[in-house]
Structure formats: C-alpha cells, structure tokens
C-alpha cells in the first residue's frame, strides 16, 4: 500500500508556508517588471559596512494581498515584520572576524566557504528541504549551488558562523517519515564556481548599464549576506530597480532563500556605482545559470518598496504570468495538439452536428460504439426558481452530487447506442453555432481521443424557441472505420448564459475551431485511422 506521509510538526510547517508564501507574493507581484536577464557574471567588490538596514515593510500591507492559506492578515503582517527584524538584527550582529577579511581580496578569491551536506538528501525536494532547515536555523543563509550528488544533497554557504549554525540544525529536523535529518558541514576551500568568471559581451553591457543606473547603498544592503553585482544590471529602466534579479540568476539561488535585506531607501540609491568601488570584489561565480524567469525575478520580489511602487503593473500573459494582483494565466482558445487531429475532430463535429440539428438524430447511431455511455447535466442552482429554457433538460439531468437515488443514477446514464440515440432524439431540437465552438483536446493516446467542445446553440422550436443556451460536451472516441471517430463516452452539460450576462459575448467568440476545415485527403484518412501512433503525438501535445 501507499504509506501516508508522516508530516513534520505543524507549526514548523506553518512558518515554512508563511515564509514561502511571502516570497511567492513578491515574486508574483514584481515579475511583470522583470525581463529576462542574461546572467552574465562579474565580480564586484564591496566592503562590509555597518549601518542600519532599514526594513521597509509599511507599504506592503494595504496594497498587498497575501495568499498564505488560512493565515489571518494580522499574523501575516506580524510574522513578516518580525522576520524583517530578525534578519536585520542577525545580520548586524553577524560580524565574525573572518567576515571582514572576506571579499576584500582584489584578486577575486574568497574567504571561507563551507559545504553543507544532507546525507540521503536526494530523497528531498530542494525547496522543502531548504525551508525545513531554514525554519530551524538560527541565522538566515543563502544556499549556493544547491545540488544532489550521489545520494546526498549539498549546497555552499559563505560564512563560518552560518555554517556553524547549520551544523546545529543537524538532528533537529525530521522528514515526513519522522526520520531525523542530519547535516554535515565541511570547509570547502574555494568552490569551483568561485574560480571562474564569465566574460561576455552581455556582461560588459550589463556592467555598463549598472554603473549608470545603480547605486549600492551600504545602509540598505547587507552585502555580507548578498554578494551583489551591480554590474549586472541592464540599461533598461525596468531592470534598473531589479538588481536582485541578476543576483538570483548568477547565484542560482533558490528564490525563497533570499532574506529581506534590501530596503526601499536603498533601492533609490542604486544609481551609478563604480565597479570595484564600494563593492568588494568577490566571486562566487556560478556556472549554472538559472534560466527560469521566476528564479530571476525572485530576489527583487522581496523588496518591499517595489511592491508599492506601481500598483498597476500590466499583466503579462504568460502561463506563469503573475503581477501585483495575481492575474490568472491568460485564457486561450482551442487546443488541438496537432493539425491532423484538429482536422479530424473538426470534421467529426461538423458531421455530428449536421445530423444532430437535422431534426432526425437516428443518423447518429453510426457515430456511437455499441456499448457507449451518455449522460447530460444542467447546473444545479438552488436560487433558480423561475422556469427557464433549461427545464426540458431537467428530467434527464444527472448530477450525482445531489442525486442519491441509485436507481436513477443508473437510469440516467444511458448505455448502448440504441438507448443513447433514443434519448438524444427526445431532447429539444437545436441549431448549433459552429463558429462559436471552442475545442480542448485534453487527452490523446493510441487508442482514444478525449476532447471537449464548448459553444452555443439555439432552440428552434417550442416555448423557448430562439433562446440561446451554452454547452460543454465531452467526447471520448476511438478510431472508427473510414477515418471517422467512434464515440464511447459522451457527456453533455448545458447551461443558460443569460444569468451570467455573457450571452452576447458567446456569440462574438473568437472564431476558433471552424475557421477552415479542409477535406481529408486519402493519405490523411489512412493516417488518421491508426491515430498516428508515433511518439510524436503526445510529444506535440507537450510541445504546445
């Protein structure tokens, strides 16, 4: 059997979740500002400075909406601020002697790096593990070059005190099987990634841009904690305020590991620093560049001021697009998986609805498998008391959420093609608007296609003649004879759009599926009959 996971202590989880969510919030909020930065790396020098790292958290509250689940706003704010303070205090106090020496080496070599290893850490998800460690660790840390080697998970930290603090975490954290997790700490010398420096045109360009636009405020930036490469900023104004992006990219730092060290005040002062000026030359130059735009965006999301800088960021229509107010991914039209399948399905739908709307649905017998299933549903709206055009569908509606009668449950699922076509014939006559059709082909294998059709139709007779209804119909079909499809499952859902006020919108839907349906060639028919078993089929699906 599959063992239930043994979960770590709830409180730790909540904290982890909370922190993770805080990071996520910022990430989402600011990603629209960000553009992809080629993470060219160049060491910059900096010196450790004393000073207040003023944590600016005030503005984030009103315009910011947190999404940690089931955490009250008060607690969120509270915990976040506390986190700020903690980080700030920690970092101010964290000045062991060797830190002063670190990073001040003009040849770019580094002070003390330590390799942190979690034995058998290969079992653990990176994010999860780091969060777990972080919750228990008395100091914040940035794990660099997290990787799995053999069975273990490892990362580097650049500070003896941090390494020591991490060592103390060993044995104090548990995995989901309630097994203790150990942490081993070893001096690392200079890690390989610290020895290389990437030179490229882009790096130069970025350096130039950053010089012009970026300043490192020693008051704001705890350089100890964040090796900062002001060189990496681009000329682009949007990027100007997002230096963290570069950092994250270059360090391959996990997005949630970046403590809140930048202040709003600091951000303003990021203008025109000389390389090698305030920043010490240090180079944990990371040779693994994260291409992931969320990683790149991540650090900056943590900068409070930017959250309130622009409350009207324009949404980015990407799959994981996010912005200040958490827009959803852009809604798109039909998805077919391949041109061939598109043609196949569209032709099928054309033929199907031609018969369906013809007044005699008996012709559909040839479209169904002998043992096919069909059922239909309409929405269950307790508030709906007025008779609607849906009432004719009511008696056939199968909604097992509310239908408990086992006899009816069975009856309303039509089985065998004869039963199905009889039941379809009893439904009101319709006229479907093919130009309104939107098709999602959401599963395809060698043996079947599964697709859902969304669209509208008109009732063409009876009391509700002329009323427009919307539908979603899901077909599961296997290859039929002569390049047709054979329906094995058919599920129809009908609803009335008038209460949603989207009726007119539906009629003006982007013409999706039926813009053009070429006739099948002989060759196409042959191909179609075997559903193109090549691996290309599903591969295409994922490619799109």
């Amino acid at each position: 059997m599959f063992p239930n996971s043994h979960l770590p202590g709830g409180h730790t989880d909540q904290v982890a979740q909370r922190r993770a969510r805080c990071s996520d919030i910022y990430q989402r909020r600011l990603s629209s500002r960000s553009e992809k930065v080629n993470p060219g790396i160049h060491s910059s020098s900096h010196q450790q400075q004393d000073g207040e790292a003023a944590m600016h958290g005030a503005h984030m509250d009103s315009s910011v909406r947190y999404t940690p689940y089931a955490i009250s706003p008060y607690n969120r704010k509270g915990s976040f601020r506390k986190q700020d303070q903690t980080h700030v205090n920690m970092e101010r106090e964290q000045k062991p002697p060797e830190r002063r020496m670190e990073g001040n080496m003009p040849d770019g070599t580094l002070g003390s790096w330590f390799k942190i290893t979690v034995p058998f850490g290969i079992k653990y998800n990176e994010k999860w593990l780091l969060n777990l460690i972080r919750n228990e660790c008395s100091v914040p840390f940035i794990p660099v070059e997290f990787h799995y080697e053999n069975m273990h998970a490892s990362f580097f930290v650049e500070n003896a005190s941090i390494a020591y603090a991490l060592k103390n975490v060993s044995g104090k954290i548990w995995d989901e099987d309630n097994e203790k997790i150990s942490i081993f700490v070893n001096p690392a010398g200079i890690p390989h990634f610290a020895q290389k420096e990437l030179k490229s045109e882009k790096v130069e360009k970025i350096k130039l841009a950053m010089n012009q636009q970026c300043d490192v405020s020693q008051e704001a930036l705890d350089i100890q904690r964040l090796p900062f490469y002001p060189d990496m900023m681009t000329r682009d104004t949007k990027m100007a305020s997002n230096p963290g992006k570069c950092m994250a990219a270059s360090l391959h730092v996990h997005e949630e590991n970046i403590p809140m060290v930048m202040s709003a005040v600091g951000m303003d002062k990021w203008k025109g620093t000389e390389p090698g000026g305030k920043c010490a030359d240090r180079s944990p130059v990371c040779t693994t560049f994260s291409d992931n735009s969320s990683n790149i965006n991540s650090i900056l999301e943590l900068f409070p001021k930017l959250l309130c800088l622009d409350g009207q960021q324009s949404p980015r229509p990407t799959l994981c697009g996010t912005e200040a107010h958490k827009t959803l991914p852009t809604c798109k039209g039909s998805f077919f998986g391949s041109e061939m399948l598109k043609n196949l399905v569209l032709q099928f739908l054309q033929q199907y609805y031609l018969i369906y709307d013809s007044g005699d649905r008996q012709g559909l017998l040839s479209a169904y498998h002998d043992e096919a299933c069909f059922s239909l549903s309409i929405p269950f709206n307790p508030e709906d008391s007025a008779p609607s055009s849906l009432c004719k569908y009511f008696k056939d509606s199968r909604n097992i959420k509310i239908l408990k009668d086992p006899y009816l449950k069975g009856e309303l699922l039509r089985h065998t093609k004869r039963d199905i076509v009889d039941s379809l014939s009893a439904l009101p006559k319709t006229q479907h608007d093919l130009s309104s059709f939107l098709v999602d082909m959401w599963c395809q294998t060698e043996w079947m296609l599964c697709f859902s059709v969304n669209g509208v139709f008109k009732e063409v007779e009876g009391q509700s003649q002329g009323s427009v209804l919307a539908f979603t119909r899901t077909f599961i079909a296997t290859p039929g004879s002569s390049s047709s499809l054979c329906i094995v499952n058919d599920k129809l859902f009908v609803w009335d759009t008038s209460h949603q006020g989207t009726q007119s919108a539906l009629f003006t839907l982007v013409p999706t599926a039926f813009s053009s349906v070429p006739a099948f060639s002989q060759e196409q028919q042959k191909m179609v009959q075997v559903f193109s078993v090549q691996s290309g089929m599903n591969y295409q699906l994922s490619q799109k």
Partner: protein
Amino acid sequence: MRKCRSHWSQGDRERHQRRSHYYEGPHTSHSSCGGRTREEVVTPPLPEHAAAGSPMAMSVDFKTYVDQACRAAEEFVNIYYETMDKRRRALTRLYLDKATLIWNGNVVSGLDALNNFFDTLPSSEFQVNMLDCQPVHEQATQSQTTVLVVTSGTVKFDGNKQHYFNQNFLLTAQSTPNNTVWKIASDCFRFQDWSSG
C-alpha cells in the same frame, strides 16, 4: 458482459511499483497544523482484482462499473477541491507523473510543470454544484480502468472576480489487493465565460 482480468499484466505491476516509489518521493504535502490529511483518492478494490486468483474469469456487469465510477468520482471531487483550496502544494499528488492539464487553453504537462503552475495560481475558493461521471469504455483505455469525471460550479481566485467553471478529469485506477488508488491522467478546466475572463 465484460470479462475481468484475473491477474495483473506486467505493465500493471510496473505501474504499481512506480506509484509506490512516487508516493515515497519528494512530492510531499505540508498539511496544516493539527491534521494529517491524506491526498489520495482511495476506494475499495476493483471487482476484478477482488477475484484475483480465482481460476475462472469473473464477469463484471456494467452496473458495477457505474457504481465504482460514482464512488471514485465522489471521493475524488471532495478531496481534489479541498486540496486545491486548502493544501495547494499537495495537489499534484493527485496527478500521474505524466498527467496533462489544459487550463483555459494553457497546456501544462508533467508534474514539474504542474507543480509550478499550481504554485503560481492564486489561492482559490471552489464551489462545486454539479458532478457527473461515466466509466470509460475499456476499448479506449486498453483495460486500464478509467473514469470520466465532470464538474461544474463557481470559483473565486484571489484578486479576481468569481467565475463559473467546467472541469473534466480522466481518473485512472491503480489497483492493489486491498484498495484502489485513483489519480488524474488528464485534466481540462475552463471558465464558462473564458472569453471575458
């Protein structure tokens, strides 16, 4: 009448083993404090497997498949939307490794992409008003027990207006002698008013 398989095929065994490994793997859930909740959809064993070992092939009638499908669907829908709303990070445990989601026309394929996708989706409040299901004909699934689940209702994503939605799932069964674990092979989600949403 359908005949049942009286023993697993090699493919089934392999799938079963892979699933075990998957469950112990790093895709873990963090449940909220005080609760150990299970992100699994489990029903009693499938009829044919209950008869495993019997020298005679047992016939399973359509009604049994329907009942089984309904049971799986009801159990599944409860767990799925609660997990989506309250334990989002555990949601991908309900998906097969190679599962695909089409979300308002956006294709998300494989667990990594699904994890990332659900991570970036705002928090949600789902209200399911309609649920229906059908057993999928074995000709389409090569005898891999599968159920079509269809839901409809409303959803409110944080920061966005409420939408009516329709959702379709293909659930496949991983069977053991003691129970059946259902996972999502494919998922299709759409706002009803997608063009204006």
